């Protein structure tokens, strides 16, 4: 309990300050979460769920926490200019965990749509936010979720009313900015009413060359017939640690696409839990990771087929270079009575060096008989015949390797339902493979 103790002390000492700079709705579950955290502690590798990521190791060092909500002087529009070309999005920023309120894009969002600070929303309309906050993320089940609930003070709240369709994708840029080693605890709540449609692109960037640790809990409520796309793109640096928890609840005939792409990171742990609660719901869950040096990517997914006639597709691809470590654990649970379930899970990985390591666990737990479920996983290398074929035709070995690796991850990119983003990603991935850091001209973040 060594790593935990400093946070237990910190919380006991500064609870009042944490609460003072947040809203009542966020403060209410803190005590309970604290009790859970004291009991659970950080997950250890003995837990099946955390077999491949030693959580407490990352929490042990000293990090600064901005509990007092001091404003951090930064103009994100200044530093972040690499708006994805040909893709007009409604662009919002979160600096560390604070929603950036100055100079917001105006007139982009249809009437009734809310996209803004969680803290602000919770103060303005506590009854409404209370219905959603903490309803999917159960702090009694996971030490890190409890930790986040204890310390989270702000984040983003997104609401799309019934039958409202947002044509233009929303882009949210999370910027990590600090002068000392820094910890961020962020919270995002997304509510899609029945029949609503929206696309959200979340990009993670780290601006300063210090150690960052971020925990983020996202809760997504998707109503009947709603369509929601969530793309998460991580382009941080090697001293960033990210713990991301994404909880999705889907009602009947809803359609959700989740795509998590890790291009550059330090250590990343993504936990995604999807509950299919209404008949005819469909989830497409994809992810890819390109990791080199000592980067670590651990994706843990859980899809719960609670009712009949739901579909889930999962596709995860990893390319691991140098001493990178990749882990994937995907579980699909088909409950009793969830007949006519159609579930597919695929995990394919390339280890490019002998020091790269890959752990994969595709799991099925099925309690219904009239179902179609399959999963597959492979770990291997690039096809030598294909490489030879290309070399015969005058393509250098290096180029041929790039081409094949590019084609390999392209399958995940193809799932994206935004053409401009697809194009942009083709470019980013290619650059990534060429070893050029993703420098987009004029962007201070990537310098």
């Amino acid at each position, binding site marked *: 309990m060594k790593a935990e103790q400093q946070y237990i002390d910190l919380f006991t000492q500064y609870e009042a300050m944490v609460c003072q700079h947040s809203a009542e709705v966020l403060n209410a579950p803190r005590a309970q979460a604290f009790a859970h955290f004291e009991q659970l502690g950080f997950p250890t590798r003995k837990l*099946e769920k955390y077999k491949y990521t030693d959580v407490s190791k990352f929490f042990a060092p000293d990090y600064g926490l901005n509990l007092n909500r001091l404003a951090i002087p930064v103009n994100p529009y200044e530093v972040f200019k690499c708006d994805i070309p040909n893709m007009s999005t409604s662009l919002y920023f979160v600096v560390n965990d604070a929603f950036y309120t100055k100079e917001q894009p105006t007139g982009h969002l249809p009437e009734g749509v809310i996209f803004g600070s969680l803290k602000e929303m919770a103060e303005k309309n506590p009854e409404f936010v209370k219905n959603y906050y903490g309803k999917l993320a159960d702090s009694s089940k996971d030490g890190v979720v409890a930790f986040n609930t204890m310390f989270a003070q702000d984040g983003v709240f997104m609401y799309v009313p019934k039958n409202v369709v947002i044509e233009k994708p929303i882009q949210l840029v999370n910027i990590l900015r600090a002068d000392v080693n820094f910890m961020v605890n962020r919270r995002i709540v997304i509510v899609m009413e029945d029949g609503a449609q929206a696309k959200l692109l979340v990009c993670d960037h780290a601006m300063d060359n210090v150690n960052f640790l971020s925990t983020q809990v996202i809760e997504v409520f998707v109503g009947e017939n709603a369509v929601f796309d969530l793309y998460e793109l991580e382009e941080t640096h090697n001293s960033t640690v990210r713990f991301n928890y994404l909880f999705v609840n889907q009602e009947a005939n809803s359609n959700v696409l989740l795509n998590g792409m890790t291009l550059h990171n330090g250590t990343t742990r993504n936990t995604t839990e999807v509950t299919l609660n209404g008949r005819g719901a469909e989830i497409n869950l994809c992810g890819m990771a390109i990791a080199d040096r000592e980067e670590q990517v651990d994706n843990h997914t859980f899809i719960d087929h609670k009712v009949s006639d739901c579909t889930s597709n999962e596709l995860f691809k990893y390319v691991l270079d140098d001493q990178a470590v990749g882990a994937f654990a995907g579980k699909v649970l088909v409950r*009793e*009575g969830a*007949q006519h379930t159609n579930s597919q899970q695929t995990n394919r*990985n390339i*280890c*490019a*060096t*002998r*020091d*790269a*390591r*890959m*752990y*994969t*666990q*595709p*799991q*099925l*737990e*099925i*309690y*219904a*008989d*009239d*179902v*179609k*479920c*399959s*999963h*597959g*996983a*492979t*770990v*291997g*290398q690039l096809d030598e015949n294909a490489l030879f074929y290309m070399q015969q035709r005058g393509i250098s070995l290096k180029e041929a390797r790039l081409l094949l690796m590019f084609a390999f991850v392209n399958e995940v990119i193809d799932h994206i339902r935004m053409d401009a983003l697809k194009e942009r990603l083709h470019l980013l991935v290619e650059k990534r493979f060429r070893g050029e850091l993703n420098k987009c001209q004029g962007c201070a973040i990537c310098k």
Partner: protein
Amino acid sequence: MQLEPNKYVKELTKEKYKYGFTTDVHTDIIEKGLNEDVVRLISAKKGEPEWLLEFRLKAYRHWLTMEMPTWAHLNIPEIDYQAISYYADPTTKKKDGPKSLDEVDPELLKTFNKLGIPLEEQMALSGMAVDAVMDSVSVKTTFKETLMEKGIIFCSISEAVREHPDLVKKYLGSVVGYRDNFFAALNSAVFSDGSFVYIPKGVRCPMELSTYFRINAANTGQFERTLIVADDDSYVSYLEGCTAPMRDENQLHAAIVEIVVMDRAEVKYSTVQNWYPGDAEGKGGVYNFVTKRGNCKGVDSKLSWTQVETGSAITWKYPSCILTGDNSTAEFYSVAVTNNYQQADTGTKMIHIGKNTRSTIVSKGISAGKSQNSYRGLVRVAERAENARNYSQCDSLLLGSQCGAHTFPYMDIHNETAVVEHEATTSKISEDQIFYCNQRGISTEDAVGLIVNGYAKEVLNKLPMEFAVEAQKLLSVSLEGSVG
């Protein structure tokens, strides 16, 4: 866990010292409970040398520090380890058996007949004291002579301890150490008996070591220990278990099987397990918690596991292969059937350590009734295991809407030259297939048997010929009452 050593045991231990190790104290069953004295007593009763007693005691002391693992996808009622009697003299046990076939449960006989088991074996299997009159005894002796000519050692492990102590000492615990897991520690402390096989260099065992063992199988006790050593360039095919249902009063079975495969040797190990699965309400039944592991130590060695699991209330085992030698090969073929309230969490582990090692996993699960059937497997490619290759396939077939089929494969890859594939599917028997059979006058039950056998054929084909036929029938019998 440590209980006050009871008086009875104390007395007996004292006795041991009074009369020395060879005294034949004729006790049927020692009193329930487990403590160091019991371990000493078992060792003494078997007249074991000091080193083996030490081995048992070390295992027992380690076992005390362990807790029963809970990670399996199984619902295991609490086991009271002090309520088990850890030693029963096999020679006296048979006296309680029925005197003639008329006294045997008619249900059991019906199943025997369905499986087509010869009369003598029926008698042996129902626990009658027949070993003195049976034909197979003479057969056994003939076999023994043939084996001896070739230099093959095939005997009970207690006999091997006496006759070939060097071999046993060298290999016992070398693949499954007593620290390996909870049940391995327990077994190492109290193992009753089992088989020992040694195939010398360059010898190809001329027969399946099954026919003999099948009759011998009864009453080896609940903590069985098998050790097979195949020396350079040898080959052996070994069959454990039996297709006939075994009525057994021992609830907990925690066996250990260790296999050592040297240079260019090949071992084929087949299991047909049909212990008592409990009644249709899920009452009773055997817990089968077995640690099976082989070490492909030599270059170009090969180990093949084939298992047909239809019995036991709870089956929890992972026959595994450690591929240490370069170019070694391992195979795992499994059919696991669960019906009524049976539970199974079974699969394999393939640990690739040597270069150019290959492994194949084919697992077929069939769940019916209210049973739960899980496949759990690990494929691990170590850093220096260049060019390792694995292919895994696990299919599940669901019969009925209240059963469960689960797959938990693990793949840990530490080498970039490895090629590892895993595939799994889950399906049910389609109504079209049943209808087609019905149209042609095949009853639904027979049709299910037919389809299930077709589904499991890939694995059944790997069984030694004579058992493949019986195993097929067994599948149909096990699924009786699951449809319609």
